[in-house]
């Protein structure tokens, strides 16, 4: 018994001694964090901040480490895109001299994605389209030489910018067709009310060289397409409200309209629909299309999806249905997928959660809560 007490006493003494004798923690030094190198699993999330709309942001998130990497200010009704090399963020936005009132300044701000510091800006005429995020509010030419910005006043046109020289080169009227779908080094297509595409070809200086209309590639009365076109190899896929996939090949001088194919067949047609603020994403290397689907009728096209449906873009067969409630996730407003061979699928919900899935298996990897206020669109390299 005495021995036990002695041992206990010695142990206590040793513990005390260790604490007392250990050197105090050294002084720390304040630093600024360096960004990790860009990788295929980095994602840029446009938070419209709908309740505080002058304070939109872009959150930068790493799908491997599940870390928030940083943030970019995005102003009011922003439009966002990455440069073709992924090194630059371009944020088209509007500011007011007094927060929510006062003189309006439309501007494209450029940030270095390796530092998240702003590098320069180009002031626009106050005509920038104020609308929800699409891939086509601001876009780079394939060679990065031009930046195009969609204008709506409500007259529709677009600005041609030189990002290297930080100047506005000019403005091109689009006869009521909207948005800027870039192709090649010098072509811009816009979507017309009639369902046609207007394609303007630019000269060396960014002026209009020629223009041409395509045939209508969808029926805007019977079944309009979402303007959130989905990048795919050589072009974009436009999903319609009822779930037809209209692929457009933009590799040639004029858009090539492929035969549409359906996501929904039989009795499900018109009952299950795509929806949300970014309804679909395509993994080009893996030939997969992911679409956020819900059950609803006319007017439900902005509804978030209760399931993600997965399709083979070659066979057009549905491969999987992934119900979100299996993961206790709320419904999905926006989808994006990484463009590598081990793809991650990102899903932003109407509760502002960001879910990260293995895009091949559907396995849930992570849920990042409260990814801003209203994360409505996602971009990745």
């Amino acid at each position: 018994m005495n021995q036990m007490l002695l041992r206990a006493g010695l142990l206590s003494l040793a513990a005390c001694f260790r604490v007392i004798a250990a050197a105090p923690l050294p002084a720390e030094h304040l630093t600024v964090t360096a960004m990790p190198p860009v990788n295929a699993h980095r994602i840029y999330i446009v938070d419209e901040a709908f309740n505080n709309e002058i304070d939109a942001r872009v959150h930068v998130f790493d799908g491997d480490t599940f870390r928030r990497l940083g943030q970019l200010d995005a102003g009011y009704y922003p439009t966002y895109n990455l440069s073709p090399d992924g090194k630059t963020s371009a944020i088209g936005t509007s500011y007011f001299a007094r927060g929510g009132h006062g003189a309006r300044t439309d501007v494209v701000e450029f940030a270095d994605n390796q530092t998240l510091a702003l590098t320069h800006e180009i002031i626009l005429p106050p005509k920038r389209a104020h609308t929800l995020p699409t891939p086509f509010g601001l876009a780079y030419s394939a060679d990065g030489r031009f930046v195009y910005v969609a204008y709506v006043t409500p007259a529709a046109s677009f600005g041609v910018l030189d990002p290297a020289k930080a100047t506005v080169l000019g403005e091109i009227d689009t006869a009521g067709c909207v948005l800027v779908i870039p192709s090649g080094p010098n072509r811009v297509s816009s979507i017309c009310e009639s369902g046609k595409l207007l394609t303007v070809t630019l000269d060396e200086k960014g002026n209009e060289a020629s223009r041409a209309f395509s045939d209508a590639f969808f029926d805007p009365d019977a079944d309009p397409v979402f303007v959130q076109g989905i990048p795919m190899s050589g072009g974009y896929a436009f999903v319609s409200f009822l779930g037809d996939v209209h692929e457009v090949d933009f590799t040639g001088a004029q858009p090539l309209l492929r035969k549409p194919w359906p996501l929904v067949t039989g009795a499900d047609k018109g009952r299950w629909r795509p929806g949300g603020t970014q309804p679909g994403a395509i993994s080009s290397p893996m030939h997969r299309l992911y679409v956020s689907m819900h059950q609803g009728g006319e007017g439900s096209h902005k509804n978030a999806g209760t399931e993600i449906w997965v399709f083979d873009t070659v066979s057009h067969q549905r491969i999987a249905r992934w119900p979100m409630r299996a993961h206790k996730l709320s419904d999905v407003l926006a989808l994006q997928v990484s463009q590598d061979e081990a793809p991650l699928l990102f899903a932003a919900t109407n509760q502002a959660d960001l879910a990260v899935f293995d895009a091949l298996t559907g396995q849930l990897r992570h849920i990042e809560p409260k990814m801003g206020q209203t994360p409505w669109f996602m971009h990745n390299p």
Partner: protein
Amino acid sequence: MHSIDRLFEKSSRALAQRTSRRSLLAAFGQLLTGAVLIPLLPMDRSARAATPGAKSARDDPQSCDYWKYCAIDGFLCACCGGSSTSCPPGTAPSPITWIGTCHNPGDKRDYIVSYNDCCGKVSCGTCECNRNEREKPMYRPSRNNDLNWCMANADANYHCSVSVLLGVAEQ
């Protein structure tokens, strides 16, 4: 056709204040030529109001289920110091608008509704309402509620949205 005439007159007058004649014709040609009658007067009413709100909500201007709000995606001015047809104090109505066609269960008629934004203050943030019956993407701007219709105001900041009956959607 009285109400339709009013619609055309109102829309074209408002647009004319802000856009060149050429752009106006290009962007909204259909609205001015009468081709608009088809989208304005859809025949298919079977899909309407899959889950209709309770009667009280359908008649409550502070409820998103209010029948006039069938194509509002934004904040209801009726919760922000205004009413279903009135902008809150200190804000300015947008002269340009988008248009909806809503069914009034009270008299079983369809009405053409002008949705104006109220502008010049930061977002109201109350009574968010997201309904999109017959709403179309922005390539059909007169039917699109994602555009900031305060875009052409002196103070272009969006605060909230109202609904203004223009007349019966006659067939």
